């Protein structure tokens, strides 16, 4: 959906991740960019250069917060100090929505700093949804949960990953950050059809999408974010855009980061598929209108 309650009724277009090697270029050249996604944890500090840069960026651009450590799926209670810092940042950035991953990564207060796959069970869906609700109520901002890439599955799982994602977001009444590259990576690693995944999630809840590059190895695919987006991922993106509508989209490029322009140009390729989706939508509307009276 272009704008919905899960992305704060915004229509943000195509953004890229704000990364350190690009700071100087952005601040000096002030290139036109729809929006930047920031990694919340990089700015959950009390002072210094990170916040100075953030304030300068916010003078010119819209930013959206994306987290990597909230671990909605960790059975631990949310950490109070963490939430407090996150809320301070939410107030500073006025992010219209906030995203983090549908994964776990900590237990007993010990952090792995990884995005670990969930066991797809009703018990973990229930616990995860409760936690998302608690966090959203505290932060007072819409939340979109992102599907992760994974390299392992559990025997205890009771459903597919997309059924689990749907179960969680329906229970939590929250949005989805649909990462089509992650769907592709996990589909290859776990031998499912990525189109089944995209067809199977509640499209009206998708508030944002991610595209990114990955790396193929002999026996598995790794989500490396160090390449341009591969063709099959763009195709999935086009399919998702047709089903969900034109949605705020972000390119992730986190390693071997090339020039700002190269990253931005790669992100803007999404326009091609967005135009395709818009045309398809318009012709559907026209078909409903019946026969034209006269050609203009």
């Amino acid at each position: 959906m272009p704008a919905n309650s899960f992305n704060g009724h915004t229509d943000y277009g195509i953004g890229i991740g704000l990364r350190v090697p690009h700071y100087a270029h952005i601040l000096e050249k002030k290139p036109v960019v729809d929006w930047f996604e920031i990694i919340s944890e990089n700015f959950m500090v009390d002072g210094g250069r990170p916040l100075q840069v953030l304030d300068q960026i916010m003078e010119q651009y819209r930013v959206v917060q994306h987290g990597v450590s909230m671990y909605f799926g960790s059975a631990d209670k949310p950490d109070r100090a963490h939430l407090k810092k996150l809320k301070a940042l939410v107030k500073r950035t006025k992010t219209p929505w906030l995203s983090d991953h549908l994964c776990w990564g900590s237990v007993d207060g010990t952090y792995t700093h990884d995005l670990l796959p969930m066991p797809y069970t009703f018990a973990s869906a229930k616990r995860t949804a409760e936690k998302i609700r608690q966090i959203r109520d505290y932060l007072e901002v819409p939340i979109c949960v992102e599907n992760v890439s994974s390299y392992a599955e559990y025997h205890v799982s009771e459903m597919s990953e997309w059924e689990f994602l749907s179960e969680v977001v329906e229970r939590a009444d929250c949005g989805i950050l649909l990462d089509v590259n992650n769907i592709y990576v996990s589909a290859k690693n776990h031998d499912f059809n990525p189109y089944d995944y995209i067809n199977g999630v509640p499209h009206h809840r998708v508030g944002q999408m991610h595209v990114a590059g990955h790396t193929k190895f002999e026996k598995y695919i790794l989500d490396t974010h160090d390449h341009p987006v591969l063709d099959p991922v763009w195709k999935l993106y086009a399919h998702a855009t047709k089903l969900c509508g034109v949605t705020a989209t972000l390119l992730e490029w986190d390693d071997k980061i090339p020039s700002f322009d190269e990253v931005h140009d790669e992100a803007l390729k999404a326009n091609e598929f967005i135009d395709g989706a818009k045309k398809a939508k318009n012709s559907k509307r026209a078909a409903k209108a019946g026969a034209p009276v006269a050609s203009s």
Partner: protein
Amino acid sequence: MPRSISSIRATGLKAPPKHAPRRLASTNDVVKLQRLMTHILIRPLTKSDGLQPVWIDGRPMTEVAEEFIKPNDRLSAFERLQLYNRMYWFRLIDIMHDDNPGLRAVLGDKKFTRLIEAYLAKYPSRSFTLRNLCSRLGQFIREESRWTAPHTALATNVVRFEWAQTVAFDEAQLPVLSAAEIARTPPVRLRLRLQPYITLLALDYPVDTYVVAVKQRNALRTEASNAVDKVREAKQSKYVARPRRERIYVAVHRLDNWLYYKRLGRPAFLILQAIAAGQTLDDAVTAGGRRVKPEQVGGWFAMWMELGWLCRKK
């Protein structure tokens, strides 16, 4: 010889369940599964960067992995867990590598990596942010000097200096106290505090100049890897000699969001230390010693105020 890293027990993490839960009926079952997997992922790697073949209860790791992880036609359950085990270690070692160039130079890369493995095996991260990954490294070296011997004293000094840089980078900056505000309260009652981003260090080695030299050497190496004619120059500067013992006093701080270190004389250091400890201005000045002249103290305070170091104690 150091005791093997694999025998170190992680602090802060409860013991793993004997077996992975067969089904997840409750949150408690989810915790058990997550605890088991965390214990496996944070176990130190083997010499060939693999998952350890024997679990803590003596069972083959393949058996433990198969109990809860599904294999596919390309990867066994063991191999799938190994991917995560390796990613955990590679990621964290990389970060600590970047955050501690000085310590790395003191120990050499191989010994540094052994130290980090032992440190993270005992003290896995307890913070949501990777910024705090090194926060207990100094404590660990004091507790287990065998990983840094015979350079433990120097290593301890370097770690304190490098952690002070993390603090200086992003700690809070409080409103600065003006001269007029200071003048308003009599010195016998006035208590000040230092900016939270300042760390005062009394060190036994001149690690400030050492770490800067190491960073310059590293920068030259990076440059050299991109330019053939620089290779010889870089090779010549390969080694930065470890510093000799010398008492120094230094404040690590920031100004206009750039990091600085500033050498201090002993009396100035003692005064600042007393301020940081919450003593009154009068007592803090006394802590500087009898030989300090009032005009000297006046000059120091003028400089500290110009640098924005002094704030009101809450």
